[in-house]
């Protein structure tokens, strides 16, 4: 079955630095890949979507890359701020499918 791996260890970085989070998956590539942010006690919030034929997508301080050869997506937050501290989830959806599979998420702490 398809698996998504995100670093289970928390990522601690200093304010102003770039945070890079990794999402690896097994087996076949999805039609698209999404990143969500989740704050404690809240539901996930959609951030970015990147399709299988796209290499990179940007939105303000956020950047996502998608490498179907490596079966990997990288999620970058530039000029990070303490308000960026949250758990970030990677999610995959397959062509024609209604099922979106989520990773367990990576917790990010940005220190002032």
């Amino acid at each position, binding site marked *: 079955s398809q698996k998504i791996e995100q670093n289970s260890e928390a990522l601690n970085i200093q304010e102003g630095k770039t945070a890079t989070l990794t999402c690896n998956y097994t087996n076949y590539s999805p039609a698209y890949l999404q990143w969500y942010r989740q704050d404690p006690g809240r539901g996930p919030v959609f951030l970015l979507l990147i399709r299988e034929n796209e290499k990179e997508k940007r939105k303000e301080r956020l950047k996502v890359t998608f490498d179907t050869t490596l079966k990997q997506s990288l999620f970058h937050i530039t000029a990070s701020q303490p308000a960026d501290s949250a758990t970030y989830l990677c999610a995959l*959806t397959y062509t024609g499918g209604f099922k979106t599979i989520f990773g367990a998420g990576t917790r990010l702490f940005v220190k002032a």
Partner: protein
Amino acid sequence: DVKVTQSSRYLVKRTGEKVFLECVQDMDHENMFWYRQDPGLGLRLIYFSYDVKMKEKGDIPEGYSVSREKKERFSLILESASTNQTSMYLCASSLRTMGRGNEKLFFGSGTQLSVL
């Protein structure tokens, strides 16, 4: 903004009780989903629905059922609650895009269910 509302923030139930979790969305989305979230396991799909009165099993449907009588409302039912169903339950909705399933899920705030 899309709003997905879950009826309860916290619920405490006893083993064997029948439990109803309600979810309402206000953006006329075709697709609705129920996930549960447990530490270290991420979100796991229980059931989803792509239209009124339609339902499909997700990855962990055992012990659950769902109802979708109206487009805006999707209910999750625990027929006989057990302690291993203690979890955070998240409802989500999405617009159905042509031929590609769902994109951009909108989530509710979740219901933390404790079964004692």
